[in-house]
């Protein structure tokens, strides 16, 4: 009975024929409560439940997590690799970010009921599968930290490239990801990739006011009014990047790329050669056709359209990715191959007006709704 009282509000998924399981589970929970060795597990459940109940209790919950160690343990629990990425993001936002289920649902363009069920399932898995509530041991830390960083970056990207049209929620997601990255850096000081992720987010977020024009259209990086970039975030981000000397990791390299853009006063001063080299380094440790595309664009900026086109044409797997075709069109146009340019541009337009419906989690492969015009090849880091 206790269990039924404890887990009802969010609606335990009504599993047909689950009566027996439910009785068994109630008994199991009773037993769990009596079992000393599993006491910790109950605390986790109560902790999670205390943090994710009705809206009125959220503030009390937020207070309880101000203890850095508790927050850190909670991050590792919410981002456990045994949970699917969607669930990690939702749990993190709910329990650590204090967002309501309705807000998270709105950010991910899903119904509140679906999101509530996702959260209930994730919490049930944490409880029933025995996902620990602790900072992993030194040997497990690298793998587990990877999952935490990826989750925070997903949260950030959802705010940055948002599928939701609600600007308020979007900016909240990005702010929240930055705040959590700070918590991570305070509790694991000196971890290079955690530091790099914070730097990367700060440098990207510094451009938020310049990224969209008055009508909400995306402004290409090269066309952005740099006086609207957030100097405070750039200074902090660049200082963090300076501490990364010699570190080779996916976030460190991306942070260095973002820093290259942040440190120049005008787009023409951009060191495309260095950016191309950094993308090359990134594809070696994290092979991806989208990164190859970014590298090709940097090379085109540095060496000219011919060299860039040669790299683009060697990329496989981006046929349904609008920026791929638009970038090709741009380079073909600059080479005077107008017929081919028009065909490639049409293909890109086709794809971006008919966005590929897919999970919004695969950040790199999502086709953008933004109506990009020619020259969009420079928007890769917009």
């Amino acid at each position, binding site marked *: 009975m206790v269990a039924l009282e404890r887990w009802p509000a969010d609606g335990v998924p009504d599993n047909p024929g689950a009566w027996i399981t439910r009785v068994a589970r109630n*008994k199991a929970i009773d037993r769990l409560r009596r079992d000393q060795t599993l006491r910790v597990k109950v605390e986790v459940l109560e902790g999670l439940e205390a943090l994710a109940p009705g809206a009125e209790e959220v503030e009390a919950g937020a207070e309880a997590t101000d203890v850095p160690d508790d927050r850190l343990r909670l991050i590792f629990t919410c981002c456990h690799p045994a949970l699917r990425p969607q669930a990690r993001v939702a749990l993190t936002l709910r329990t650590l970010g204090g967002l309501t289920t309705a807000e998270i649902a709105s950010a991910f363009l899903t119904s509140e009921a679906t999101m509530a069920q996702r959260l209930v399932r994730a919490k049930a898995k944490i409880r*029933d*599968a*025995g*996902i620990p509530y602790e900072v992993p041991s030194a040997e497990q830390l690298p793998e587990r930290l990877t999952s935490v960083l990826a989750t925070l970056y997903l949260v950030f990207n959802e705010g940055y490239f948002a599928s939701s049209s609600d600007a308020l929620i979007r900016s909240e997601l990005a702010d929240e990801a930055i705040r959590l990255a700070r918590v991570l850096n305070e509790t694991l000081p000196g971890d290079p990739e955690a530091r790099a992720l914070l730097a990367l987010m700060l440098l990207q977020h510094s451009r938020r006011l310049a990224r969209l024009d008055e009508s909400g259209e995306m402004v290409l990086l090269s066309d952005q009014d740099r006086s609207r970039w957030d100097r405070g975030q750039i200074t902090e981000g660049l200082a963090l990047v300076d501490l990364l000397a010699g570190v080779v990791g996916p976030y460190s390299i991306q942070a260095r790329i973002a820093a290259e853009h942040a440190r120049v006063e005008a787009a023409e001063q951009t060191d495309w050669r260095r950016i191309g080299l950094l993308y090359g380094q990134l594809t070696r440790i994290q092979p991806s056709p989208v990164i190859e595309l970014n590298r090709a664009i940097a090379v085109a900026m540095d060496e000219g359209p011919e060299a860039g086109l040669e790299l683009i044409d060697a990329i496989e797997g981006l046929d349904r990715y609008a920026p791929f075709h638009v970038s090709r069109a741009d380079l073909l146009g600059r080479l005077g191959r107008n017929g081919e340019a028009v065909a490639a541009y049409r293909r890109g337009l086709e794809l971006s007006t008919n966005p590929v419906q897919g999970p919004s989690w695969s950040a790199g492969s999502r086709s953008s709704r933004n109506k990009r015009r020619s020259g969009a090849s420079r928007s890769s880091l917009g």
Partner: protein
Amino acid sequence: MKYMLTIFGPEGGMEDATPEQMKAEMDRWAAYSQETVDKGAFVAGEGLQPSATATTVRIPENGGDRTLTDGPFAESKEQVGGFYVLDCKDLDEALDWAKRIPSRAGAVEVRPVMVFDES
């Protein structure tokens, strides 16, 4: 907590193995099993005969006749080849054991064992 590690994998592949290779393979599994015993985790564990030896009993929803079919529950390239039940502190410890299973290919499913009240 007790966890069941169900081991899935492609079958066969050892038909042409020399006795030495067979022994090396058996030794790897024996060493793993012994370690689960030494660390106090072992509850149960068995290897199974190939899925060709399986017989499946179908239980119809409406209480109809239960029928037998020759073969495993699911026809698939990867079949259950064995299992362990291990007593672990938490999921991380169970996943640690799972990652170290001596299989050469396939997958290991890790699931907590349901706890019933005996009283």
